[in-house]
């Protein structure tokens, strides 16, 4: 009996101490890890879109709620004006969700750039959405009034050859992003102002 109690006590104390230690460590490293993930996973995409910004968009970020979903917005400062923001959206691709970073100019409501962050598309076919700059570049400067769709669906986007599903996914992500943007625009403008200098 005594041995039994000792086993229970030792295991309990060990688990509690270990749990407490890890919880504390996780709390302390949370911000740092989030930053690192942004730098290495989303950073390249953000930097492509906000090329030449005078600030660090990964530091100058804010969050807004759209219903239950949290969106992170990254602000790019050009000529002292914080008018360009980027945020992430997702669309269904051939192999799963495609994460797409979208840059929008608040002043004239135009798309500044689009860049794929994460995907599981076929290497060499669908993966071109990320690596072929020409595909992403066609979104640049498009005014957003209507739905974005590939040309075979009657839209304005040139699909990647052999990767129509991927191209549709990216277009859907952009359309979604536009909806989010239009819904949250007043709040975004308000928040982005704080980063102007």
């Amino acid at each position: 009996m005594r041995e039994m109690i000792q086993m229970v006590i030792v295991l309990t104390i060990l688990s509690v101490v270990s749990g407490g230690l890890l919880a504390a460590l996780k709390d302390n490293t949370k911000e740092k890890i989030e930053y690192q993930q942004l730098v290495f996973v989303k950073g390249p995409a953000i930097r492509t879109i906000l090329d030449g910004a005078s600030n660090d968009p990964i530091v100058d970020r804010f969050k807004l709620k759209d219903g239950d979903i949290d969106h992170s917005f990254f602000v790019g400062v050009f000529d002292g004006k914080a008018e360009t923001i980027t945020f992430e959206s997702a669309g269904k691709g051939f192999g799963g969700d495609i994460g797409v970073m979208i840059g929008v100019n608040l002043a004239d409501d135009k798309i500044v750039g689009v860049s794929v962050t994460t995907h599981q598309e076929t290497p060499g076919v669908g993966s071109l959405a990320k690596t072929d700059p020409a595909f992403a570049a066609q979104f640049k400067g498009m005014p957003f009034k209507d739905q974005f769709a590939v040309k075979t669906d009657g839209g304005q986007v040139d699909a990647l050859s052999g990767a129509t599903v991927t191209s549709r996914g990216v277009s859907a992500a952009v359309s979604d992003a536009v909806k989010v943007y239009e819904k949250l625009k007043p709040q975004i403008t308000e928040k982005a102002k704080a980063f102007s200098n």
Partner: protein
Amino acid sequence: MAKSITQEFVKGLWDEIPPFRLVLGLCPVLAVTKTVENGWGMGVATTFVLVCSNILVSMLRKVIPSKVRIACFIIIIATFVTVVELVMQAYAYPLFLKLGIFIPLIVVNCIVLGRAEAFASKNGITRSLADGLGIGIGFTLALSALGAVRELLGSGTLTFWESPIQIMGASFQPFTFMIEAPGAFVGLGLMLCIMNMLGNK
């Protein structure tokens, strides 16, 4: 015959060097040693876990009831592995991306549990520290060496920290077999063979 503390440390570097002599913990050895950087990164992570768990197991060896000792060891090891995982994510994210699943898998690495069970639970703190450090550094050296051989033949470069250094000339045709999984077995086998030949003299 009892060994001195220095002997406990040194034995991990040659006489009992894992994975070549103990032939334990082969999963990460085969999987991550595509580059030197991956090799030593994994080695350092394992060394940290090994040293910390050895010290703690040795400190608690009189408190831990023998019936639940494995469970206690695993809690201790898992805690330190999670520490490594979090710290690596916070300060060396690119390395974390490359090592991926193999960091959490240190929990089930035979070397760590093996040292806790076979050594630290029977010896004092200083000796356990020396043992953990020796075995850990031996493991790191072994992984780096295997990583160097595989990377040199497989891609003609050596990566010590982030950017690869071109060693072979531009005309070198990479022997890609070496950085594939089967190449790991062949590389490990050859190194074991060389070590045994040297040891027999």
